[in-house]
């Protein structure tokens, strides 16, 4: 996708303007990610308002109960469509590989910051890949069940037993998705430099070397072979 981007910013390259920093996410990637993120926050807040009476007050953020009910499914669709575009950008980088399973088995080293003991990681580590698949599954569940319980347009086409089941599927999928995103957000806070990657698009070579060494080596190999030799 990087060849679709405008300007000098090309994904997975050394940025010429920024002291050898590496471009991890282009402006397009970042825009796409943050549209998904904003839609997620709004969908989660409006959904939680309808999930538990203690959180019904959140409906005030959306203009009251009826507006929450009206807006929630449309916000969900925006999240879904934006995520489909994001998945087209990053999906191919998220295939599980043998080194990922080893990485997962060493989860103790992962959570205790002992990265030097872990297998080398490509553009995404196994945790990030699992987040990706969890989001794919949850959004699929939310879409299918959400259409069934969308009373204004679709519920009347389904028998009541299906509507009841869909309500459960919707709640469970949303719970798993929210917990997954909590983990996703925490990982960004935990691994310093990640938030800059998604806000400014750039990471330092040291960050790439430490957390995604296979990816770093690929970029540097490409950079070395394309650069005219000085001697």
């Amino acid at each position: 996708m990087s060849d679709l981007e405008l300007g000098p910013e090309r994904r997975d390259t050394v940025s010429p303007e920024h002291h050898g920093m590496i471009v991890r996410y282009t402006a397009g990637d970042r825009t796409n990610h943050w549209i998904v993120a904003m839609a997620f926050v709004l969908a989660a807040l409006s959904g939680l308002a309808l999930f538990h009476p203690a959180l019904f007050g959140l409906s005030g953020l959306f203009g009251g109960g009826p507006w929450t009910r009206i807006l929630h499914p449309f916000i969900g669709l925006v999240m879904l469509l934006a995520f489909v575009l994001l998945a087209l950008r990053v999906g191919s980088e998220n295939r599980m590989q043998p080194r990922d399973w080893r990485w997962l088995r060493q989860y103790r080293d992962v959570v205790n910051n002992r990265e030097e003991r872990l297998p080398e990681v490509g553009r995404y580590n196994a945790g990030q890949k699992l987040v990706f698949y969890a989001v794919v599954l949850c959004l699929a569940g939310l879409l299918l069940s959400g259409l069934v319980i969308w009373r204004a347009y679709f519920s009347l086409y389904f028998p009541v037993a299906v509507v009841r089941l869909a309500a459960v599927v919707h709640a469970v999928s949303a719970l798993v998705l929210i917990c997954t995103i909590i983990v996703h957000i925490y990982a960004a806070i935990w691994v310093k430099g990640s938030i800059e990657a998604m806000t400014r698009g750039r990471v330092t070579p040291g960050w790439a070397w430490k957390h995604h060494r296979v990816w770093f080596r690929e970029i540097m190999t490409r950079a070395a072979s394309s650069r005219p030799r000085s001697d």
Partner: protein
Amino acid sequence: MALQSLDIVRRSATTTRSPDIREPSGGRQVAKLIDTTKCIGCKACQVACMEWNDLRDEIGTNIGQYQNPHDLSANSWTLMRFAEVESPKGDLEWLIRKDGCMHCEDPGCLKACPAPGAIVQYANGIVDFHEENCIGCGYCIAGCPFDIPRISKKDHKVYKCTLCSDRVAVGLEPACIKACPTGALVFGTKDDMKQHAAGRIEDLKSRGFEHAGLYDPAGVGGTHVMYVLHHADQPQLYSDLPADPHISPAVRLWKGVSKPLGLAIMGLTALAGFFHYIRVGPDETDASDEAAARELAKSLEKTP
């Protein structure tokens, strides 16, 4: 609703108790008794309901039977359902049932409703929708074991029989009761209605309806609308009146344990993250990582 709120015992999407210090003496629980064995299908009750509640349904089409309209709607809160059933003896029985909200003691609609105070249960047992609090999600439709609430296409609020809570509050009987010409509809305290039904059932049994009985299903804690049926052993003969209605296990799961459990899981996930940061700390990149990166990059340049 200042006065009325004192008589509310249950309120949708509300986890604390309703004001319930008042204890009305005797006979606080009301019930409507529908004696299907006396009903002649005249639909006076349907007309009275329309009239009292200012409801006008759209004119439908005749599909060759008496049932009209074909189904309950936001504008038709009660409906005579006509079933033609052949008995084992070969007789044709015309089983007519006045359908509408059963006013369950354990209302599935109220359990499913996410809007505080959109559905309430009064101390007298009536389950009422307060449409001004309704958000139009239709969860009550999924919660109801009797397929009663209907959402309006006009205002996206749900409607159903109120058991004329406005009339009952001032000591009147519901409009349908007032209109019934045969005495098939009776209204009073639930105890009185059970007693009245017992007399009717005894009479029916003496006349050969050995399975005559009262429909007051225990699965929903009993109802405040009860039927006398000639065939109480086969309620489904009466246009699919459910034999054992209860709140669906899916609705119980969704609106029961999943709510507190779901919030707890989300909260614990966030707490786990917080304490991981406090105990283990962030994963930072320092100068030695940058140096290692430079070294690797340099080695790659040397070995093309």
